[in-house]
């Protein structure tokens, strides 16, 4: 087998632009957050400028990689580097969610029961002796002095109310989107671009529906149940887990939408070369698996 040269760009402006714009982003984000109670602060302008620069850099960077690919600079070995790179990136995302799931399991198995007086460290109950451990934790140990007690949780409401339970619809939407993106993949592998475009379009649509339903659920939580970030550890874990998941859905949906645009308007991808799409679909399946875990551990159990 003949050796194909591994493409190493001689130099690139993108990374330094990306690093510098992230620098602006974190200065902006920190200043904005530190001046949340100051309505006259313009710090968010720094944040938005940084974000705009960062997104623009990413756009041109990815465009360049696509161009290089189309110009035939990518050897099989370079494509393999992208495959490994994406796989390990997804692994790092898995570990990010693991931190939040770990926090959830810890408070549910140890911290909350101990505060309620059960278990080996149950003497924690002497802090707030009226507190009874329950999950979902609605009444905070301090009896709502520092935190706002919610009216109800987002957990499984019982079989009789299941038809009003938004997370169930979210689950159906997201699980079907994993299937539709797989159909798109199958179509592409057969070289059928039309099937690919249709199924991918449906997937992007389902992503949008999911985000819409999630927004509706948050609205319901905040407006009707009084469940907020400030509702103690149940609200904290609920919003952080579902929030980061929702953010990842938006990111994955954006990736798939870019792939759809590339396919429909620029005619990219064929049955042999389509790792850009595959990487996005891997990410999508990952987001889906996280949701299954969320549905199980945050909503049902």
């Amino acid at each position, binding site marked *: 087998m003949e*050796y194909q*040269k591994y*493409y*190493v*760009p*001689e*130099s*690139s402006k*993108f*990374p*330094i632009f*990306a*690093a510098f714009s*992230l*620098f602006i982003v*974190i200065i902006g*984000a*920190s200043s904005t*957050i*530190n001046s949340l109670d100051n309505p006259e602060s313009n710090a968010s302008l720094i944040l938005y400028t940084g974000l705009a620069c960062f997104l623009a850099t990413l756009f041109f*960077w990815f465009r360049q990689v696509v*161009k290089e690919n*189309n*110009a035939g*600079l990518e050897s099989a*070995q370079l494509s*393999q*580097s992208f495959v*490994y*790179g994406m796989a*390990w990136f997804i*692994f*790092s995302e898995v*570990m*990010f969610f*693991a*931190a939040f799931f*770990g*926090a959830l399991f*810890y*408070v549910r198995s*140890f*911290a*909350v029961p101990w505060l309620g007086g059960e278990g*080996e*460290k149950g003497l924690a109950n002497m802090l707030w002796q009226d507190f009874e451990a329950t999950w979902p*934790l609605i009444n*905070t*140990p*301090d009896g709502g*002095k*520092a*935190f706002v007690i919610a009216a109800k949780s987002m957990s499984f409401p019982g079989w009789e109310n299941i038809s009003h339970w938004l997370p169930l619809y979210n689950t159906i939407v997201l699980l079907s989107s994993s299937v539709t993106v797989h159909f798109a993949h199958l179509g592409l592998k057969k070289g059928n671009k039309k099937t690919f475009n249709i199924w991918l379009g449906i997937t992007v649509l389902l992503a949008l529906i999911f985000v819409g339903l999630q927004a509706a659920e948050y609205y319901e939580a905040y407006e009707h149940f009084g469940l907020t*970030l*400030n509702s*103690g550890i149940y*609200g*904290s*874990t609920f919003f*952080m887990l579902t929030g980061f998941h929702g953010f990842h859905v938006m990111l994955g949906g954006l990736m798939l939408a870019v792939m759809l645009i590339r396919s429909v308007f620029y005619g990219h991808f064929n049955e042999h070369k389509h790792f850009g799409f595959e990487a996005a679909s891997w990410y999508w399946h990952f987001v889906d698996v996280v949701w299954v875990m969320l549905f199980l551990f945050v909503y049902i159990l």
Partner: protein
Amino acid sequence: MSSVIESHHDDHHHGPAKGLMRWLLTTNHKDIGTLYLWFSFAMFLIGGAMAMVIRAELFQPGMQIVEPEFYNQMLTLHGLIMVFGAVMPAFVGLANWLVPMMVGAPDMALPRLNNLSFWLLPFAFGILLSSLFMEGGAPNFGWTFYAPLSTTYAPPSVTFFIFSVHIMGASSIMGSINVIVTIMNMRAPGMDLMKMPLFVWSWLITAYLLIAVMPVLAGAVTMMLMDIHFGTSFFNAAGGGDPVLFQHIFWFFGHPEVYIMILPAFGIVSHIIETFSRKQLFGYSSMVWAMLSIAILSFVVWAHHMFTVGMPLAAELFFMWATMLIAVPTGVKVFNWVATMFKGSITYETPMLFAISFVVLFTIGGFSGLMLSIVPADFQYHDTYFVVAHFHYVLVPGSIFSIMAAVYYWIPKWTGNMYDERMGRLHFWLSFVGVNVTFFPQHWIGLAGMPRRYPDYALQFADWNMVSTAGAFLFGASQILFLFIVLKTVMGGKKATPQVWEGARGLEWSVESPAPYHTFSTPPKVN
């Protein structure tokens, strides 16, 4: 499209670009390795200067030169800068320089990402250091930033700290993905996994650890951010959370992190001992398996940092035994290094001096770690200077000596010039004496009960603190000599041969010294 073609047609056979742009825009693994190494050295000097402030304050009991508030900031920044700014980037720099050459690759697998990984760091540390000038001062809660010190009682600059940690983490994750992909995908034909140089193996495992735990650190600081500014209660028992949860999450990151800072050192020392003993390394495959076992065990020992926090007895016992288990693979490595030297034709050039003292002093740090792992004993040692002595023994004559050894060992390959051997040995002996005078007495004052992290102490600890401070200034000053030696070598010196060292083996020694700007554009043959 034309720009793509243009940038491609003349590639690979000319040297580096000129001026500042070379360093800003570079995609070359050797350039980026150099950037990492210089950055790490600058951070080493800044973090070292902070250590000097700390030791100067502790020269005598009573408050001498700084306010307690500022002392806390120095303590915190010293730890953060040395861990994230000095040791880790130095190892990434070495990986950049060496891994592609050792596996016979033309460059790192993702060259542009490599540049981004580096350039995030100066920005992140610029922000962290600028917090010294912010209202309320720099972070003052120790490098482990336990809640609620780092949440309820933190200065406003904690927000900047949180985001700069995010950026450091992103840099580490991208750098590690690059290393893993390079090792998995870019090896020359014939370079099987079990033929890889041990430094490459050590980095493969380190990179895996980094990708596994840096996101967890990101999760921890994110929860802090939410607790401080958005009303969540992850680390607040009044809302049903738990401050101890912070310690669990932090040390789930933190313990693998300490192996991240030592595994590459294992790789470096294995190469150096092999070369200067003029023998094949004893027990190559057991070295690989030992590193793998250490890496896996590192995920199940984290709570040995928290024995006194109030954990159930079963947890204390589990983490005690699991921690002791790590001594087994570590012992395998130490015995293998000694067996490699056994009956070797040893010469004592500077890298070998550093490597041998690594083996001895790292082992001392390992043994004090074993003492700390015993739960009932740890109740006495916890948060004393014994702990400070322990982790400085594994980090300074451990990680940092290995980095210095690596610089002396490979600098002829990087610059084409030999360093001044006499000055190198002088640097070694000054550092060796300095480090032991600094940290060995801390074992005693720790066992006698001196708590860590205070700017003042009881009178009975005065003598050894004075000795320790004298040692610290000796060690600090001898690093200026190191800077001088490195600069002198970069400027000129006796020309190095391609092999440099008589007993050196490996692909990096098969190319000229200095190594050409592009090595192995077509893969070499590996036997």
